[in-house]
C-alpha cells in the first residue's frame, strides 16, 4: 500500500481573463492550468516538467495561493489551501513554502540577507528576538553560508550563494512541503550541482517533501522520485521516475526526452526533431492538445480530450498517461 498523501491537488484550474477596451471587459480566457490532479506523498520529490508556457509555474503559484485558483482543491493534510480564509492560510503557510527561480530578483536588493531570512520569523512572531537570531544563524549554517555574512546585501553575492539564502528563507518556518520553482535554472553547471546536493541533503535531514518544477529534464531525472509531465495546462503523463525515463508512454514525453542534447559526441544522433511549437493557451487545439505535433495522431485525438489512464494493464504502479493510443505504442 502507498503511504498517505501529504498534499492532494484535485481538479485545479487557473484561468486568466484576457481583457480589452476602455473599461477592460473580458475578451478571452487563458487556460493556464486546466483540470490538474495529483498526489504528493510525504518525503518524496515530485518533479514537474514541461516547456515554457505549459503552466507548471502557474500551477506552483496557484497551489501556494499566490494566484487565486479558478476552481479545484489543494489539500494539505485535509486542510484546503485553495479555499482557506486569510487566517487559515496564514497558518498553513508555515507548512508549505516556496523557493524561487531567479536568485537576482527573489531577494529584495534593499534588505540585508540576514533580515531577509529573519523576515518569515518576524511575520509569524516565532520566538523571542534572541531565538530568532539563533534560528537565522542555524539556517545560514544549514545552507552552507557563514552566519557572519548576514549584514551584507544580496548584490555582494554570487548567484549560487543567493540561491542558498533563498533556500534558508524558505526553510525558516520549518515547512514540510517545499514548492521549488526552477531553483537551479539560472545557475551555472558547477554551481547547479552544489545547490542540488544541498537540496537532497536538506530533504534527507529534515524529511522535506518537494514539488520540484523545472524545464530541465536531466535535473528532474536526478532529483525526483516521481515525475509529472505537463503540456498546455494539463498533466499528460505521471509516474515513477524510472518508468517515465525508461519507458515514456506519451508521445510528447518521448519527444522531450529525445530533444535533450547528450553530452557525449560519440552518441550523436542525426535525429529529426519534433516539429512545431507549443500552441497558444488561449485557443488550445481541440481534443488532445498535442495532436497537431503528434506523429501518431488519429481522428479520435482531434475530437476527444484523453483522460489519464494507467499505462500497464497488468498492475497499478501509478504510471498514468493521457493518450488515446498509449496501449498501441
Amino acid at each position, binding site marked *: 500500500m502507498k503511504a498517505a498523501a501529504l498534499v492532494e491537488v484535485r481538479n485545479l484550474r487557473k484561468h486568466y481573463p484576457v481583457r480589452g477596451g476602455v473599461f477592460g471587459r473580458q475578451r478571452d480566457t487563458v487556460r493556464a492550468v486546466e483540470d490538474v490532479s495529483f498526489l504528493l506523498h510525504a518525503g518524496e520529490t515530485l518533479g514537474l516538467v514541461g516547456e515554457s508556457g505549459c503552466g507548471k509555474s502557474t500551477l506552483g503559484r496557484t497551489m501556494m495561493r499566490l494566484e487565486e485558483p479558478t476552481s479545484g482543491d489543494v489539500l494539505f493534510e485535509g486542510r484546503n489551501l485553495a479555499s482557506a480564509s486569510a487566517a487559515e492560510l496564514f497558518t498553513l503557510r508555515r507548512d508549505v513554502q516556496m523557493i524561487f527561480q531567479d536568485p537576482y530578483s527573489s531577494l529584495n536588493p534593499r534588505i540585508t540577507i540576514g533580515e531577509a531570512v529573519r523576515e518569515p520569523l518576524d511575520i509569524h512572531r516565532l520566538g523571542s528576538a534572541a531565538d530568532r537570531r539563533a534560528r537565522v544563524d542555524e539556517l545560514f549554517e544549514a545552507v552552507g553560508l557563514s552566519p557572519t555574512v548576514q549584514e551584507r546585501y544580496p548584490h555582494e553575492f554570487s548567484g549560487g550563494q543567493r540561491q542558498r539564502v533563498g533556500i534558508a528563507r524558505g526553510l525558516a518556518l520549518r515547512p514540510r512541503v517545499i514548492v521549488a520553482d526552477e531553483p537551479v535554472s539560472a545557475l551555472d553547471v558547477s*554551481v547547479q550541482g552544489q545547490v542540488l*546536493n544541498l537540496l537532497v541533503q536538506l530533504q534527507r535531514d529534515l524529511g522535506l517533501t518537494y514539488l520540484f518544477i523545472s*524545464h530541465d529534464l536531466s535535473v528532474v531525472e*536526478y532529483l525526483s522520485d516521481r515525475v509529472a509531465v505537463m503540456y498546455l495546462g494539463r498533466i499528460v503523463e505521471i509516474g515513477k521516475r524510472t518508468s517515465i*525515463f525508461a519507458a515514456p508512454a506519451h508521445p510528447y514525453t518521448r519527444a522531450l526526452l529525445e530533444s535533450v542534447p547528450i553530452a557525449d559526441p560519440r552518441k550523436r544522433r542525426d535525429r529529426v526533431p519534433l516539429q512545431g511549437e507549443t500552441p497558444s493557451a488561449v485557443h488550445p487545439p481541440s481534443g488532445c492538445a498535442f495532436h497537431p505535433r503528434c506523429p501518431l495522431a488519429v481522428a479520435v485525438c482531434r475530437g476527444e480530450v484523453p483522460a489519464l489512464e494507467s499505462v500497464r494493464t497488468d498492475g497499478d504502479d501509478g504510471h498514468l498517461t493521457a493518450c488515446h493510443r498509449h496501449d498501441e505504442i
Partner: protein
Amino acid sequence: MALLEVEDLCTVFHTEDGVVHAVDGVSFQVEAGKILGIVGESGCGKSVTAMSVMRLIPDPPGRIESGRVLWKGRDLLAVDADEMPQIRGREIAMIFQDPMTSLNPVFTIGKQLGEVLDRRFDLRGAAADERMVEVLGHVGIADAEQRLSQYPHELSGGMKQRIMIAMALMCRPDLLIADEPTTALDVTVQAQILHLMKQLQQEFGTAIVLITHDMGVVAETCDDVVVMYAGKVVESCGVFELFVAPRHPYTRGLLDSILRPGRSKATPVPTIEGVVPSLLQPPAGCRFADRCARAVAQCHQDEPLLATVSDKHLVACHLPLEVPPS
C-alpha cells in the same frame, strides 16, 4: 590557413569599481566550414570575445586593449571603422541569445529582410520577395509568404530565431557567430534550431562559432571546442578529444558535473567547489588554482601558458591530466 585567427585578444571594461579584464589574452582559430564551440560559465568572457571580434564592444565603458583578429589574413582591429559594417553581415554574421529583442518590433519581417537585400544586393520588388521566400524555406519556415507580412510579436521565439538565422544567411556569410542561440528556447525548439544550423553548415559550408554554456549542445554540434575560464582559454581541441580525454582539471570538473541520464539523487553530483575569481584583481598564477584539487605552489605563482600537448590539443595547465587508457 584558418578563416579566422584570434591572437592574444584583451578586452577590458572600465567600471566604477575598477578595470574588469573580461577577456585576457585569448587566442583561437576557426577553420573554414567547421563549427567551433566556445564554452564556459557565465562571466568567463565568451560573449565578450565574440563581440570583440565583431568590434561591437560599447566604448566606453569597454575597450579592446590589444591583440589581433585576423579575418582571411586581414586584421579586423586595424580596419577603418567605416569599413566594418561591410564585413559585418556580408562576410561575418551574428545572431544573439534573445530573438525577442533582435528584431525591430515596428516593422514587418518582410520589411526587415527586404532592407538587407536592398542594401547589400540592390534587390527589390518581386525579385526580393522571391529570394526571401527561398531563404525562409531554407531555415524551415513553410508558409513564408504569410510570415513576411507579420510583425515580430506575432511570432514565437523559435520562429524569430529562425528569422534571425535567415537574415544572417541572406548574405551568404563565410562565418556565422551564434551567441547562445538556443538558451532562451524550449528544448524541443532548441533541437530544431541546432539541427538547422548543422544543416546549413553542411549545405553552404558556412563556418560557425557557437557560444554556449551547455556541454550537451557542444557535444551534439561542434567540431572543435575552446573552453574558457575567467577571461582565459584553458583548453582547446577537437570535440571527441575534449569529451573523451580532457586535459585541464576545469574541463574535467565541468564534464563531471553534467547530470547524465540514469543518475539519481542517491549519489551526490560532483561539483567544483569555490567561486570564480574576481576579474577586477585576477589572481597572479593560474586563475583556476584556488578551486583546483591538483594545484601546487607553482600554480599560485606562475600563469600557465596555452601549450600544445598533442596534435591540435592545447592546454593551459602546469599539471595537465593524463590521457586515460582507451
